[in-house]
């Protein structure tokens, strides 16, 4: 049933990785088609085999992985076709397809480009290899390509190295490289995952434009349902090496058949609205004095240069920030990478020593202390009430201590419990975060990412805090776990009257959990307000740009291409 438009037809593909004591079937009987000029999105959570599928097409699966059976028929424009799966992975024939007829771009542009060759060198290489161009001709073509992917000053950019480019620019250069020989198929393996949403929107824009100009087929691999809804014509949903569902994007989003697809979408859509737990809460007393009142907070890191390491300038990571947190509420701090949100979160607990400003904290007795100016002993006291949850559930738990020791550590060092009392308290905390109390004797390596994050929460709760700073606490988790974790945090908030400062780059997470939001941009808070109001009707230009760059998980609401663009006054 291959029609003329089908350019790539994958049937019953199996890619296996022999490991000690068995075989990992990374791709287990995958079939789908790619049509000229169309975009197929392959979507799935980590470990679903989507990336290996992409690599199998060009036979560049890392050893010991190997395409075992199946066919990958590539139909050329001139009517000939070839089964890529049947070719020798190191042979001349498949090499003449790679980069020339089917090109590929990858997730991490920094590590996917050579650190010691210029961008120009890496682009001209493809041209000289496949099109047999001379040096001069290839260089001219490379400049044109860089111009086509909107890299400013391409004549000079071509001489630069990967590390001199910004993240978005690197991905553009990578696209230029992939498009050098006018391929008929472009395989994009999570090309925007490592990028900020506004940069992601720009790259998606660029890819869309180039695709319609050239009539390429695009196979786009992603885990982000929003991106799928935004760009896909067809969707392939993968789970544990198998295709569980495929069909037109409209059908997948509005009439999903497979339970896994439904679950995946359900989790994503759940995060599109504020949490149900928050909806039934009584409103916070309006005119209560704030729990935390941050005034004029600054954190400047010196830039040292030259032989004598003189300070030539400062990075203003946090630049004159005022925020207020009320008891029992969740304040979201949202921003892109480099906005200073994480630094701000860490300054609140004096993990970093702020350069200037006040962090006024109201104690239980109503007295107010400036955390920024506390002596070490008093600071320790304050840190019992202000706790932190970290982003990386693997790095934040000492792998050499048992879970019980980790959770008990704050109780022990503060002299609050020991012996059997400590043991009981740890068991109670484990139960509270939904873990089995018998697991206290285990080490963190025995737990999954989601479970580890729960351990981190239990540690934060151990001292009965009043405020918890959560730094990207759900970013490392798959989307199905994210909502669970947020619900747990909201539930604990209700039970223990906690206030959260929730730092995140993810608008949907912020909308789900936060009462109020502060938007950060280049070290400054550009907008503060009720979560609903900021998310639905932003005032500041940057917030508008940020929000409109977030793809919605609904193919009927495509809007990235008409998004708001923000040009900073400072720049």
């Amino acid at each position, binding site marked *: 049933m291959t029609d003329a438009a089908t350019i790539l037809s994958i049937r019953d593909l199996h890619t296996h990785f022999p490991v000690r004591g068995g075989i990992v079937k990374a791709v287990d009987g995958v079939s789908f088609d790619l049509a000229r000029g169309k975009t197929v999105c392959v979507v799935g959570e980590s470990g679903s085999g989507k990336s290996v599928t992409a*690599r199998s097409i*060009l036979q*560049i699966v*890392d050893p010991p992985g190997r395409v075992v059976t199946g066919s990958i028929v590539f139909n050329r424009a001139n009517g000939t076709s070839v089964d890529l799966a049947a070719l020798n992975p*190191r042979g001349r024939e498949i*090499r*003449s*397809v*790679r*980069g*020339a007829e089917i*090109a*590929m771009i*990858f*997730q*991490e542009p920094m*590590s*996917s*480009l*050579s*650190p*010691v*060759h210029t961008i120009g060198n890496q682009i001209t*290489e*493809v041209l000289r*290899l*496949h099109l047999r161009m001379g040096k001069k001709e290839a260089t001219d073509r490379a400049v044109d390509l860089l111009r086509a992917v909107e890299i400013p000053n391409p004549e000079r950019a071509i001489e630069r*190295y990967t*590390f*001199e480019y910004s993240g978005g620019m690197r991905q553009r250069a*990578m696209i230029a*490289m992939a498009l050098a020989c006018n391929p008929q198929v472009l395989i994009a393996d999570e090309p925007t995952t490592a990028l900020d949403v506004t940069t992601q929107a720009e790259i998606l824009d660029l890819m869309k434009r180039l695709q319609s100009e050239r009539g390429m087929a695009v196979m786009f691999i992603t885990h982000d349902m929003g991106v799928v809804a935004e760009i896909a014509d067809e969707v392939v949903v993968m789970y544990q090496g198998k295709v569980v569902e495929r069909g037109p994007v409209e059908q997948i989003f509005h009439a999903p058949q497979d339970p896994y697809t439904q679950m995946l979408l359900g989790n994503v859509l759940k995060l599109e609205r504020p949490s149900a737990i928050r909806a039934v809460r009584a409103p916070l007393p309006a005119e209560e004095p704030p729990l935390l009142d941050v005034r004029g907070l600054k954190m400047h890191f010196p830039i040292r240069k030259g*032989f004598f390491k003189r300070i030539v300038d400062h990075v203003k990571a946090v630049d004159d920030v005022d925020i207020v947190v009320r008891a029992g509420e969740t304040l979201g701090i949202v921003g892109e990478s480099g906005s200073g949100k994480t630094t701000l979160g860490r300054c609140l607990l004096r993990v970093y020593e702020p350069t200037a400003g006040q962090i006024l904290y109201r104690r239980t007795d109503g007295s107010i202390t400036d955390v920024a100016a506390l002596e070490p002993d008093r600071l320790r006291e304050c840190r019992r009430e202000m706790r932190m949850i970290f982003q990386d559930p693997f790095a934040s738990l000492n792998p050499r201590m048992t879970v019980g020791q980790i959770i008990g550590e704050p109780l022990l060092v503060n002299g609050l419990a020991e012996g059997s009392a400590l043991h009981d308290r740890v068991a109670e905390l484990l139960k509270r975060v939904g873990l089995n109390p018998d697991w206290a004797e285990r080490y963190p390596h025995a737990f999954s990412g989601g479970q580890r994050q729960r351990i981190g929460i239990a540690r934060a709760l151990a001292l009965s805090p009043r405020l918890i700073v959560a730094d990207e606490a759900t970013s490392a988790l798959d989307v199905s776990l994210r909502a669970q974790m947020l619900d747990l945090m909201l539930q604990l908030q209700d039970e223990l009257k906690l206030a959260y400062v929730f730092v995140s780059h993810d608008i949907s997470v912020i909308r789900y959990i936060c009462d109020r939001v502060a938007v950060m941009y280049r070290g400054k808070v550009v907008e503060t307000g009720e979560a609903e109001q900021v998310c639905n009707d932003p005032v500041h230009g940057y917030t508008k740009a940020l929000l409109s760059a977030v793809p919605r998980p609904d193919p009927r609401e495509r809007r990235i291409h008409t998004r708001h663009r923000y040009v900073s006054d400072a720049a």
Partner: protein
Amino acid sequence: MLGFIIKRLLWMVPSLFAVSFLAFVLIQLPPGDYVTTYIATLAASNEIVDRTAAAELRARFGLDQPFIVQYLKWISGIVLRGDFGLSFEWQQPVSELIWERMALTLVVTSSTLLMTWAIAFPIGVFTAVRQYSIGDYFFTFLGFLGLAIPSFLLALVLMYVAVVLFGADVGGLFSPEYQTAPWSWGKVLNLIEHLWVPVLILATNGTASLIRIMRANMLDELHRPYVTTARAKGLSEFRLLLKYPVRVAINPFISTIGWLLPNLISGALIVAVVLSLPIAGPLLLQSLMSQDMYLAGAFVLLMCTLTLVGTLLSDILLALVDPRIRFD
């Protein structure tokens, strides 16, 4: 780039100062001083020097002055006039004794360095690309062995084998007829003929560790995403191997000069003693045994300077090939 080189050159100043200071401390370390030794030498030939004469001698050589003044005199003599002091054992200025031996030391160590690289580089790449192959195991085992055998032991075994099997003496850098002859083309050729034995022995240790370093570097780089990118471009395996992972792995390889050279100079010292090579080592040992400290100090100073210059060169070379360092 120029800035980097200038910065690196400026760093040499305190290093050289520290080295010269260290050498002078070593000179001063043994109990007694030049005059004590001088008197002892004279006493051996039944000449008695009385106390006032000794004090006079001390005043003349400036030995009654504080340490730092003596140091300044010594170092300024070296820097301004190339004067390293007197060797009492040889009754000659030190500078007349050291230069030819230092030059030969340089010849031996630099040929060893080149040899080490020439062997270790291809083998390192090969063992990484063919990880867990028979060849890999073979060279890995050889590498371990090379690391475990002290170079002087290897020299001894080689000498033993040469004597027992071939009845030949593999010691020395020259045939007897050239040993004291002035430099000529014949002597240079003769040197090259003799050079391979000590070079081979000296290269064993370094080669063993360099193979391991190169292999580890390559294994690190072989599975990097940029290699996959290159593969997806359609490059042949051999070409992409040479252009990408080998090119990146070569950088830490270059920086090995930094520790390889000091090791080589150390190793050459002992091997030279065993094989009686006319390079710095044996004379340094002899001067230390007889506490001819100005001679010993000069050798220590020059050997250390040699390794410092070597490190400098490797740093500059590294900056030349690695843009990440150049732009830092």
